[in-house]
């Protein structure tokens, strides 16, 4: 058993440093360690045991234990195991040792838990503000329990601006975003450009925060949260909906009914279909190939229509409740869905055949946006980006959930690490999704669609759930709480990790490849922008006049 072997190695090495171990199943290991060994345990898991870094979480546990909680989650993808390394710190200025210098994938997570919970990662290589708005006063951390969800800070400095790093010698700064035709959502990259070559960049995102996590733990109840979770993303919302429900179910040791699991699987794959088709279209649009863009959208349309027929909505499916799903899939819907995927398969086969022979597209995408396997490991890159770099990870197979352990499918892997490989991986995954839906439709058992839950869910339990979104693994972490709501719910969308890899992927490329590379990870900024209490009042007061905007745009960089 790998989990026991791992535990033995850890105990051998850290002995007294480990204060408590929870093994809720063969697939989950919760390791409570003393703050002094946190860094060493993490580095040991990452370097020696070759775990993948999933996410870092900060939580305010002061009402219960008087301490702050920090967790780093690691995944052992070949072994179907998630290991969460948890520690408690106290004091007025809580601190843990930073791990970002050894595990670069933890960079954003550590900055995030300082911004939101106020636990400083001591020794962080780049301890800049990540999430809070520029004018937010220092020392106020909105995810702390004593901060109300509708808190408006009194001393918001509306004039304060983000300070970018110094421009490298011989470069000009090209502002990319917050508004650019290829960015569907606001995010800002400050590119350092020499001629057409990109020498580096700095990212400032998190511009449209919605306070989803705070609302979940203060205002909503367990069964209301899935509706909100779904609105994290406009493309892969169902993923968050399912991932949240699964995390709570795991924490509360509940299992959804069999039929519900099948319905979840089917809808997740329907979502993947539409998302992949949409992405292939967008990638072609960025490369200037609008014909394929339009054709993908035409082929995608029936998927949206059938989703509307089944769920009442093209995109938001309102699928999960804790322990099951909200609605049933009737015979009519199944027949319709079968017809849609049959047609889709035919049409998509034609497109894939045409694209894979097209020299023009290949010339534009080969050796562009290269993510080496080393980078994938270092930054914890996920999904099609990892699979296009020869790293065979897929949460559907590695950490099976819903009905994925009962269907057969292949994990598509390509080795060339570039945008072209990402296109191929996604294009071919469409066929696997079709395969999965077909099997589910024929195997789906009858029965109730939701488990009956009569007892209150237990509190202070932890749950981890991982769902393979079209863009990569979406990772949810839940600590259950009182009053029918969780204490802490942390969402890590795949873009959160993939975006951190972008600066390395675009370095030394030309500006034209930058948009293509950014597009190739299918960035979903709304997914990363889910946290934070937005301060609507002070934001709306900052209205730029035309003159001011103009001077902002025109300002030459020193």
């Amino acid at each position, binding site marked *: 058993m790998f989990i026991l072997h791992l535990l033995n190695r850890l105990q051998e090495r850290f002995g007294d440093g480990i204060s408590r171990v929870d093994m809720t199943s063969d697939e989950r290991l919760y390791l409570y360690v003393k703050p002094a060994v946190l860094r060493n345990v993490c580095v040991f898991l990452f370097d020696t045991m070759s775990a993948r870094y999933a996410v870092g979480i900060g939580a305010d546990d002061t009402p219960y234990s008087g301490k702050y909680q920090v967790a780093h989650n690691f995944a052992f993808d070949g072994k179907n195991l998630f290991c969460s390394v948890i520690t408690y710190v106290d004091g007025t200025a809580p601190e843990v040792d930073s791990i970002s210098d050894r595990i670069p994938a933890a960079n954003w997570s550590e900055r995030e838990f300082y911004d939101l919970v106020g636990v400083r990662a001591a020794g962080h290589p780049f301890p800049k503000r990540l999430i809070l708005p520029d004018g937010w006063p220092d020392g106020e951390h909105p995810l702390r329990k004593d901060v109300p969800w509708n808190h408006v800070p009194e001393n918001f400095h509306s004039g304060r601006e983000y300070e970018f790093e110094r421009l490298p010698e011989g470069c000009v700064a090209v502002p990319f975003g917050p508004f650019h035709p290829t960015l569907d959502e606001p995010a800002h990259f400050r590119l350092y450009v020499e001629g057409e070559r990109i020498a580096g960049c700095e990212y400032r995102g998190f511009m449209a925060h919605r306070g989803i996590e705070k609302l979940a733990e203060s205002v909503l109840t367990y069964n209301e949260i899935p509706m909100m979770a779904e609105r994290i993303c406009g493309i892969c919302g169902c993923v968050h909906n399912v991932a949240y429900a699964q995390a709570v179910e795991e924490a509360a040791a509940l299992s959804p009914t069999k039929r519900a699991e099948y319905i979840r699987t089917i809808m997740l794959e329907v979502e993947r279909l539409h998302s992949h088709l949409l992405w292939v279209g967008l990638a072609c649009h960025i490369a200037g190939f609008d*014909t394929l863009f*339009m054709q993908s959208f035409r082929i995608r349309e029936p998927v949206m229509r059938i989703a509307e027929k089944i769920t009442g909505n093209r995109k938001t499916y309102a699928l999960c409740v804790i322990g099951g799903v909200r609605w049933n899939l009737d015979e009519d819907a199944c027949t319709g869905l079968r017809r849609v995927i049959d047609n889709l398969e035919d049409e998509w086969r034609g497109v894939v055949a045409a694209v894979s022979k097209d020299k023009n597209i290949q010339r534009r995408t080969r050796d562009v946006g290269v993510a080496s396997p080393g980078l994938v490991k270092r930054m914890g890159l996920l999904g099609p980006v990892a699979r296009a770099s020869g790293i065979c990870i897929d949460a559907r197979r590695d950490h099976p959930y819903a009905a994925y352990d009962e269907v057969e499918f292949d994990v598509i892997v390509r080795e060339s690490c570039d945008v072209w490989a990402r296109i191929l991986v996604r294009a071919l995954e469409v066929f696997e999704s079709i395969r999965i839906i077909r099997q589910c439709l024929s195997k789906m058992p009858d029965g109730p669609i939701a488990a009956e839950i009569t007892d209150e869910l237990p509190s202070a339990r932890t749950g981890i759930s991982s769902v393979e979104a079209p863009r990569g693994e979406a990772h949810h972490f839940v600590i259950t709480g009182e009053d029918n709501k969780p204490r802490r719910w942390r969402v890590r969308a795949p873009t959160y990790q993939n975006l951190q890899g972008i600066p390395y992927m675009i370095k030394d490329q030309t500006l034209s490849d930058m948009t293509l590379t950014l597009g190739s990870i299918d960035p979903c900024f709304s997914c990363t922008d889910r946290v934070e209490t937005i301060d609507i009042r002070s934001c709306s007061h900052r209205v730029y006049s035309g003159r001011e905007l103009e001077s902002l745009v025109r300002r030459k960089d020193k």
Partner: protein
Amino acid sequence: MWYDLLTSVFRGLVNTVLLLALAPLCEGIVRKLTARIQSRQGPPIRQAYYDILKLLGKEDIEVGESPVFQRLAAALGLASVLCIAWLIPMGVGIPFSGGDVILLVYLLALGAVVGVLAGIASGTTYSMLGVSREVMMLITLEPLLIIALLVAAVNGGSMRLEPVFSGVVFGDVTFSYAGLIMLLMVLAAFQAYVKRVPFDIAEAETEIMEGALMEYSGPKLALFKYAQMCRLVVYSGVFVALFVPWGNELMFPLGWLLFWLKVAVLVVLVTVLAASHARYRIDQAVRYFLVMVAVSFGALVLAALGY
């Protein structure tokens, strides 16, 4: 004497008016056909006329480093294209027969230079990126057309436009391989002359947001768009006059109709190519054109040797 001049002016005016009247129609055909290839309904064919009218009716906003030069660039862009209409036979002979190959080359290059001027005058980061791409394209593209015209001049023994535009590019008495090579070269670079995918690199909406044109709106943008539409017709006209001039001498409506038919065929070709390609990167495009320039110089040598 007076009669000749009057005929020249009359023909020139006819060409100009026809160009202005039919260029948006060609654009409309391009859009409709593109839409059809993409399984879309597409805008009505007359949409391009509405677009120009709409833009012309908007407020003239002045943003940018030097508004005077921006206005100048917008006017010059359209004017340079319209002037070319006086130098090419658009079915009714060459209106202004005093011109020669050098004048034509200057006017063609002016169109690209205007793009550079427009970008520098607005002076933002993205327009400067557009300018740098525009210049790179200009340097590698212009020689191709110049050489093609020169091959015809060498074969015909004259720089004057009338002999050059009489099919002499394929040889006066004996067949000239140089002409055939140049036909292929110019055809292969044609998308770049009319700024369409895969060579719309200097504008590239999804990369540098229209580049040099980024800061323009209203009437100035209308002029640029109009010039862009006319450019498609004018370059098709140059191509037809240089490489497929046969039938121009036919009786009035026939020769004239034949000319516009040939232009329409080119427009369709341009549309289909644009709809079936992705945009190249500037370095890929420049490398592609440099090879073609080298081949063209070979063709010029061939022509000089009489092949």
